């Protein structure tokens, strides 16, 4: 079908997720989604010297798991598209170096997972490659060090803050595999003018609402056409605002909208409003959501990767926090 409406592309070739690799850390292991991880670590350093190296190890392990499940070797992966939260995407770069494949680094903060998935499917649609690995990763201590304060510094966080997830999730895309990628909606940058870097969910919510509405209009659908709409990561605060904004525009069936940052942790885990970070949506979407689609619980799911596109420098210079959201519609194989 090709282009639909203003922001959406509907795929013609059947491309889907063949295998996934999902690796997590300590809090993720204690959370309600622990069973959907392929590997969980109780050592936050993963035997490495630095948090940054630990993050790379997470991603490399997720890649290895996805390849092993498919019975493939490194040489069989022609292209990796992925991103993380580190300066200049060093985590993804070093992991891609050890993979040895072609590499495209992408960044949409917490929405990186879905951006990578959309681009991967489009490159396969264009016939450039027959197989793509795509994913995202984050490590809570590496992110804390880069974006906030030293980890051992005793700063008090507000209840609307989010905890960066420690985890990596990758998906291996192949023609004919399932769940299939049906359509992708690329988001616009939406800036509500908020400036509190602890409150990313509120900054991202208008972007999420904008892209979800764009997707539904372009596809001529309603929220009820989806068994699940999953945002990642608005957490509790942002999810409530996104639902309000959608309802305010007449999209009132918001009860099937859930959020990766809310799903990943229990409320009593000391994670404030919920999870965030590129790895949060990666592990929930590629771990939990894909699994539930394979189990037949969901037939059509809209993955909405939401990101807060600020940097530590832009925040210090008094700039607002712009948000973005990209959406990919997944369908169970044999269902259209």
């Amino acid at each position, binding site marked *: 079908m090709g282009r639909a409406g203003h922001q959406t592309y509907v795929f013609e070739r059947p491309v889907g997720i063949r295998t996934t690799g999902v690796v997590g850390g300590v809090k993720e292991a204690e959370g309600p989604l622990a069973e959907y991880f392929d590997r969980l670590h109780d050592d936050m350093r993963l035997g490495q010297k630095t948090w940054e190296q630990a993050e790379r190890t997470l991603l490399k392990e997720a890649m290895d798991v996805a390849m092993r499940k498919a019975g493939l070797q490194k040489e069989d992966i022609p292209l990796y598209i992925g991103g993380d939260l580190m300066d200049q995407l060093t985590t993804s770069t070093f992991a891609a170096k050890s993979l040895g494949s072609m590499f495209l680094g992408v960044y949409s903060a917490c929405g990186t997972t879905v951006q990578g998935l959309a681009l991967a499917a489009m490159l396969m649609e264009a016939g450039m490659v027959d197989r793509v690995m795509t994913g995202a990763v984050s490590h809570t201590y590496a992110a804390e060090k880069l974006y906030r*304060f030293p*980890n051992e510094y005793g700063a*008090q966080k507000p209840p609307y803050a989010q905890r960066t997830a420690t985890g990596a999730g990758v998906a291996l895309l192949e023609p004919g595999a399932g769940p299939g990628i049906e359509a992708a909606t690329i988001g616009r940058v939406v*800036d509500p003018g908020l400036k509190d870097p602890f409150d990313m969910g509120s900054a991202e919510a208008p972007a999420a609402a904008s892209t979800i509405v764009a997707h539904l209009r372009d596809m001529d659908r309603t929220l009820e056409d989806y068994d699940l709409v999953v945002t990642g990561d608005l957490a509790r605060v942002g999810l409530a605002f996104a639902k309000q904004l959608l309802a305010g525009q007449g999209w009132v069936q918001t009860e099937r909208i859930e959020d990766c940052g809310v799903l990943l942790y229990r409320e009593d885990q000391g994670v404030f409003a919920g999870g965030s970070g590129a790895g949060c949506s990666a592990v929930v979407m590629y771990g939990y959501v894909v699994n539930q689609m394979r189990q037949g619980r969901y037939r059509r799911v809209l993955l909405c990767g939401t990101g807060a596109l600020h940097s530590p420098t832009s925040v210090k210079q008094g700039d607002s926090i712009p948000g973005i959201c990209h959406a990919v519609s997944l369908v169970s194989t044999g269902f259209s």
Partner: protein
Amino acid sequence: MKPKDAKATAAQRAYRERVVAARRSVPLLGNGLRAFMAGGALCVLGQLIQGIWVRILGMDNEMAANPTTATMIGFSVLATGLGIYDRFGQWAGAGSAVPVTGFANSMASAAIEHRAEGLVLGTAGQMFKLAGPIIAFGVTAAFFVALVKTLWVMGS
């Protein structure tokens, strides 16, 4: 309305108002009470330690002030290294940040965090990342207070 806000659209402003209204969920009273208790407790601990120094070394109260501060800094750095102080800080807020233990924590935590970037540019270079502003403003304030006092003494 501030001139900065003139650029914001009506929708942006309405949304921002809703977000700020929701932020009232920050428990100001509870945070203030905990900060008061934690900060007070740290000061009581300092007082006890000062008492010990006076007793053991036979110092007077003024002489014991420096070893007391050093002991508190030692405790804070140890708690930082053991990964306790950041949790205490989340609970206590300003109560853990304002006393000298908070200053020590800001230096020790930055030193630990940036050790991986080397002893010179990492630990030594980044150690004052959070403490730097405190020193800069502290020294500047002290200079002006001392200036006023000096002029006062000269004038009288």
